[in-house]
C-alpha cells in the first residue's frame, strides 16, 4: 500500500470517529445550568433531547416540533407553551406583551394549525409600576385581537424585588390543525426550495440596540407579528407542496435550516446574496461581528416548498401584508447529508453550523 493511501485511511478513521460521536443523541452532562442552555443552540439541544424528551417520552414530544400535535375525537389539535423573559420589556417595534402572544401563536401557525385560544400566566416583580403593567395588558389584548385568538384563562404571581426583571410572561396556546397542511421536518427532498417570509434579524437587533450596551443607534424595529396570515396564504396557494414550516426565533434562520437538514438527512445550500437583510441590521451585525442568519426573528417563517410550486408560494407570501420582502434563499441537495452550506456573496462556500455560544441573551 502506498504511503498516501495509509494517510487517507487514517484520516478517514478519524473522521468516522467524529461522525459516530456527533450522531449520538446529545447528552446533558453539565453540573449547572448556564445561559447557553437558553440560547437555542447546541446546549439547548442537550437539555431538550438529553433530559426532557427521554423523561417525558410522549410521541408528540419526540418529534421536537414547534407545537405538539394530537387528535381528540378525530379533531387534529396543536398545543404549545412559551415563556418570555426579554430585557428590556419595551423595544422599538414591540414589547414583551406582544411577543408573548405572537410567539405562541406563531408556534401553532407553523405547525399548520389555526391559533384559537391562549392562556396567560404572569410573574410580576414587586415594585413594577402599575402603568407598565397596564401598557403590557393593553399590548397583549391588542396582539390577541389582531391574531384572532381569545384569552381564556390566566394566573398571576408576584415575587420579591430583584427576582424578576419587571415581569415574566408565559402563554399556552391551542390551535386546530388545518386539513390542507401535511407538514413534517423529515419530508425535505432534493430540489425543494427554501423561502423566508421577509427581511431577517430585525427583532434580535432591535432588542440588542434597545439594551443600550453597544451605544449604537439605528432605525431597526422588531418584526413581532402573527404568522397565521402568511401560513394561511401558503396553504391556500400550494397546500400539499408545502413540506415544512418553521418559525425562525432563537438561533435564527441558520438554526432552523440546520435542524431540518438533519431531520431529513439532506444538504441545504443557502445563497447569501438572496437573503433579505435590512442595511441597518447588516451594519449593526458587521460592527458587532454577528451573523444575521443566527439572530432571532419574531415574525419570520422559513418555508420548504416543492420546486414546481416555489414561484407560486413566493408570490402568495409576498401578497401578505408584512411579507413583501419574502424571498427564495436556497435549495435542498443530496450531499453532504445533514449539513448546511452557504454560497457567500463573495463567491466562496462555507459550512453554516448550529449556534454554539450565546451571542445575545434574553431576547424573548
Amino acid at each position: 500500500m502506498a504511503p498516501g493511501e495509509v494517510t487517507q485511511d487514517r484520516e478517514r478513521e478519524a473522521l468516522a470517529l467524529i461522525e459516530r460521536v456527533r450522531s449520538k443523541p446529545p447528552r446533558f452532562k453539565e453540573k449547572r445550568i448556564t445561559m447557553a442552555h437558553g440560547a437555542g443552540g447546541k446546549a439547548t439541544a442537550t437539555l431538550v433531547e438529553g433530559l426532557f424528551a427521554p423523561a417525558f417520552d410522549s410521541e408528540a414530544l419526540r418529534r421536537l416540533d414547534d407545537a405538539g400535535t394530537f387528535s381528540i375525537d378525530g379533531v387534529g389539535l396543536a398545543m404549545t407553551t412559551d415563556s418570555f423573559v426579554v430585557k428590556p420589556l419595551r423595544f422599538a417595534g414591540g414589547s414583551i406583551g406582544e411577543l408573548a402572544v405572537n410567539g405562541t401563536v406563531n408556534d401553532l401557525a407553523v405547525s399548520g394549525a389555526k391559533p384559537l385560544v391562549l392562556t396567560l400566566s404572569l410573574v410580576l416583580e414587586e415594585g413594577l409600576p402599575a402603568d407598565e403593567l397596564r401598557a403590557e395588558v393593553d399590548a397583549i389584548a391588542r396582539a390577541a385581537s389582531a391574531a384572532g385568538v381569545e384569552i381564556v384563562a390566566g394566573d398571576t404571581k408576584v415575587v420579591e424585588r430583584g427576582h424578576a426583571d419587571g415581569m415574566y410572561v408565559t402563554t399556552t396556546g391551542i390551535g386546530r390543525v388545518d386539513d390542507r397542511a401535511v407538514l413534517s421536518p423529515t419530508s425535505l427532498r432534493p430540489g425543494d426550495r427554501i423561502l423566508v417570509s421577509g427581511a431577517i434579524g430585525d427583532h434580535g437587533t432591535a432588542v440588542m440596540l434597545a439594551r443600550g450596551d453597544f451605544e449604537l443607534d439605528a432605525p431597526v424595529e422588531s418584526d413581532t407579528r402573527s404568522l397565521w396570515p402568511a401560513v394561511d396564504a401558503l396553504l391556500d396557494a400550494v397546500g400539499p407542496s408545502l413540506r415544512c414550516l418553521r418559525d425562525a426565533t432563537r438561533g435564527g434562520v441558520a438554526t432552523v435550516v440546520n435542524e431540518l437538514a438533519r431531520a431529513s438527512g439532506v444538504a441545504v445550500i443557502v445563497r447569501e446574496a438572496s437573503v433579505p437583510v435590512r442595511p441597518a441590521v447588516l451594519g449593526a451585525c458587521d460592527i458587532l461581528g454577528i451573523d444575521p442568519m443566527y439572530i432571532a426573528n419574531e415574525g419570520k417563517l422559513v418555508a420548504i416548498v416543492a420546486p414546481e410550486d416555489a414561484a407560486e408560494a413566493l408570490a402568495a407570501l409576498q401578497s401578505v401584508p408584512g411579507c413583501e420582502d419574502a424571498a427564495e434563499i436556497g435549495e435542498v441537495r443530496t450531499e453532504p447529508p445533514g449539513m448546511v452550506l452557504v454560497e457567500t456573496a463573495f463567491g466562496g462556500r462555507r459550512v453554516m453550523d448550529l449556534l454554539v455560544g450565546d451571542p445575545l441573551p434574553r431576547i424573548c
Partner: protein
Amino acid sequence: MKFVDEFRDAQLGRVLAGEIVATVEPGRHYKVMEVCGGHTHTIYKYGVDDLLPENVELVHGPGCPVCVIPMGRVDDAIAVAKEEGVIFTCFGDMMRVPGGEETLLDAKAGGADVRMVYSPLDALRIARQNPDRDVVFFAIGFETTAPSTALTLMRAKAEGIANFFCFCNHVTIVPPLRALLESPDLRLDGFIGPGHVSTVVGARPFEFIPADYGKPIVISGFEPLDLLQAVYMVLRQLSDGRCEVENQYKRVVPYDGNPQALKVLAEVFELRPHFEWRGLGFISHSGLKLSDAYRDFDAELRYSVPGVRVADPKACQCGEVLKGVIKPWECKVFGTACTPERPIGTCMVSSEGACAAYYNYGRFARERQVV
C-alpha cells in the same frame, strides 16, 4: 455600505483568484499562515479559502487572543471572580474558554458576579457605579487591544478610582512568531501579517521575518479582497524569489505604526520576563504586566491568585498543528479527548481554530477534494 462593499466585490475576487491560479507552480504545495484570528474569521465568513487552488493551504496562526490564554491563567481569573464582593468583567468569548476545572460561564452559574463587557471603559463605568465593590477587568489581546486598556487605566488613575483593577494578560505578537520560526520542523512558506496589530506597531517590527528567516510577509486588511490580494502578494514574492515585508493594508497601517499608542503602552505596561501560551509553552518577553506607576490597579497584586501552572496535556499537539507539521486529525487526542465541547488545546478552543474547524467541517473539506 459605501467603503465596505467595494472590498467585498465578488467579480474582483474572481479576477484575483484567477491571478493566484496563474501564479502558483503546478505540483508545488504552499503553506501560508495567517497570523491573526481576525483574518481567520474573514476567511471562514466569506469562504475565501474556497476560492484558492487546492495546493495553496492557509494555516491558522497563534493570533487569536482568546485561544492562547493558558488554563492556569483562566483558573486565576476564576479565583479572582469568586472573591467576595468582586464584579469580574471580561469580553464575551473569554467566558467559554476552559480552565483546569471550569469556565467563567460555569463560575457565573455558580454564583460569581461575572459580567460581559464590550470595552474596558464599560468595566470602568461599572466601577464608578459600584464604588463599594472591587471591579476587575480581564484584559486580553495583542497590541491591538492593549492601548484601550492602557487609556482606561490612565483615566482611572486621573479620576482617582480606587476600586478598579486589571488582570493583565496582554501579549505581544513578535515573540510567538519568532518562536514558531525558530522551530526546526516549521513547514510554512510565508505569512499574512496582522493588520490591526500593525496599525499600532507598524510594519517595521516584522522585518526580522525576511531578514533572519528568509520568509515573505504581507500585512493585510480584513475584508475578503484584502486577504485574497495578500495571498497573491505572498505567492508573487515566492515565485519571484523575493522575500520582504509588504504592506497590503496601506490605507490603515503606517510603516512606523502609531507613535501615540506606543507611548501610552510604554507608560502603562512593561514586559514580563516570560509568559505562557496555550499550546506553545513559555515564551520570553511575550507578555505585558502593569508598570510600577500603575501597580495599585494590578489585580495580581491585589489578590493572591493561585498561579498554579496547569500543564497542557502531554498528548496535545497544538504546537505542531500551528507549525504546519501535522494535520489536526493526526493529533493523538483529536476528536476523542479534545472536542469543541471540551477543548484541550488552543486550536480547538475557538470555532475558528484549525482543529475546531476541521472537527466541524472536515467532512465537507473532503467532499471538496474529491470534487
